[in-house]
């Protein structure tokens, strides 16, 4: 029982990272109806920026905050420059564009920072010690990551539900034409969505480098697949679903790896195929996911 609780706790920590990347994907999907395949590479890129900042002598949390700002601005710029021209075009075109961004950003990370293996951050953001709760070791880093993620969700909730800006963003996503008529600057709202997503992705990137070192250009590839599985499980359009889905995937992967030692399916290195199986199963059984509403199209 203690082992079970232990695995759940550490699964929640990695799951919260998947959840934040899934949240970034969901934010863009809600506002533009497109999945951003470059979200993971964008996160890696911004994490490298954070590494460079710290390398120049900044403290971790200062670099953290600065990276969020840079990521936000970068996300807004990407939307305005690259995505804007094909806005409202076929889904296929936009998806190909984000694949282009995926390849470009991955190449740039490799080019600028090389595939050299780095430890990031050099000094850990959270204490390395752990609390002992009834025999279950809860590391302060895991708790910290979970808390920051939850803080992000609460912050986003407040932004979307209790500010005029959040209302405008939701309106622009729901009905662009009507929003434009009442004075919402729809284009900028979509760009804001990209900026927010990039910033949240940066958090996921920096925490991935801390929780599952080292920092290297391909770091977010598997995390992106887990985040996709989380987002699809949660319903792709639901932020709450992304969080629940991310935590579920994190705990599930951990439990499967642990209890596989009794079943011997050798699933330890099969995490990506398991995530793929989750995606395919959800699409077959309940395409709307746990929290999504089935889409009904009027013809």
């Amino acid at each position, binding site marked *: 029982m203690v082992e079970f609780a232990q695995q759940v706790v550490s699964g929640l920590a990695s799951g919260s990272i998947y959840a934040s990347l899934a949240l970034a994907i969901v934010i863009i999907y809600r506002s533009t109806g497109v999945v951003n395949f470059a979200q993971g590479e964008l996160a890696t890129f911004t994490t490298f920026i954070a590494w460079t900042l710290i390398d120049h002598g900044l403290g971790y949390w200062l670099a953290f905050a600065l990276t969020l700002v840079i990521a936000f601005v970068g996300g807004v710029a990407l939307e305005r420059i690259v995505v804007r021209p094909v806005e409202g075009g076929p889904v296929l075109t936009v*998806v190909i564009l984000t694949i282009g961004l*995926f390849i*470009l950003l991955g*190449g740039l990370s490799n*080019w600028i920072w090389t595939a050299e293996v780095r430890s990031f951050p050099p000094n850990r953001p959270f204490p390395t010690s752990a609390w002992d709760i009834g025999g279950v070791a809860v590391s302060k880093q895991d708790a910290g990551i979970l808390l920051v993620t939850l803080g992000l969700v609460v912050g986003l909730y407040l932004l979307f539900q209790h500010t005029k800006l959040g209302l405008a963003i939701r309106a622009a996503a729901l009905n662009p034409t009507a929003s434009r008529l009442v004075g919402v600057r729809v284009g900028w709202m979509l760009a804001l969505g990209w900026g927010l997503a990039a910033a949240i992705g940066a958090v996921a990137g920096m925490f991935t480098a801390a929780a599952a070192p080292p920092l290297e250009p391909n770091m977010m590839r598997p995390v992106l697949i887990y985040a996709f599985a989380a987002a699809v499980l949660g319903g792709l359009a639901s932020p709450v679903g992304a969080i629940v889905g991310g935590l579920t995937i994190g705990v599930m992967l951990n439990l499967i790896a642990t209890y596989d030692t009794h079943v011997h399916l050798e699933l330890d290195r*099969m995490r990506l195929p398991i995530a793929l199986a989750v995606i395919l199963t959800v699409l077959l059984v309940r395409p709307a996911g746990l929290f999504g509403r089935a889409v009904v199209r009027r013809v």
Partner: protein
Amino acid sequence: MSRLTLARGGATVLALSVAIVAIFLAPRWDQVGDIKGAQMGVYFIAILGLNIVTGYTGQISLGHGAFMAIGGYTTAILVAEHGVRDLWTIPIAGLVAGAAGFLVGIPALRLSGLYLALATFGLAVAMPDLLSWDKLESVTKGGQAIQLFGSSDLTGKGFEDVSILGQTVTFTRAVYYLTWAVALVLLVVAWLLLRGPPGRAFRAVRDSEVAAASSGVNIAAYKTFAFAISAAYAGIAGSLLVIAVAFADPQSFPAKLSLTLLVGAVIAGLGSLWGALAGAAFIQFLPDAAVHISKAQGVPDAVYGAALILIVLLLPTGVAGGLRRALAPLTSRLYTRS
């Protein structure tokens, strides 16, 4: 002469000239050139397949590298373990990969194209791990490479010379001819398929699902069919790749391969068959050219990505579409009587 006859004649002339150029250029190359030419043929076939599903049916697949892996492994296993002659494994590889495409397509194709992109992307990323799964060790050697070198069922066992049609050529040259012969057959098959009723249905699905359904096109069936055919093309490409290098391992089919193929298809111009030639040449020779910019890792990827974005933004119909538009003032005279 009707426009259709002209178009038909044009396509035939094009296919023939490709064949002639390929046969006459070949003797000038060394063995590395042969292998690069053969690889380009492999990309050509895979891009052709990707074009059927993405260009003509409007369904995006980010996982064609995974179907190449399935085809390649089919060939490797049949030749190495079961002593099947390599040439016979090519159609079998196509069938197996096609069946796999059918299975993957069923859940995703009933939904929006976005879900297919997600599922196939997951497949591309997960495929190397799947091939390395210990439980599949009896089938796939659990991630260890399958060597075909020296197998008596391989054309040119130990890379020695091969005789075709009474002529003796090097193994690499034989592989080159084999790849492009298959490529030409598949080009003609694709052309016949796409100009007939299936092609019309594919395009109808792409342009408006509602209109297609109203006209009695079974959307799910045609999407699944297109996807299976397309996966079969990729499987044949993978099979030829394995025959060319006499070797198969999970790292030969990384997730990047799938994305590279998409780059090729978009560069070529989605919805253009002969454009696949330009796309294949681009992804085969770009890494060689990118070395001149900088030898740093990641440079080819940065160029691929930038090229893909620029093409989508500036030349949405790809190289083929751009050329077609540029030449339109010349060729339109052939079609219109004035």
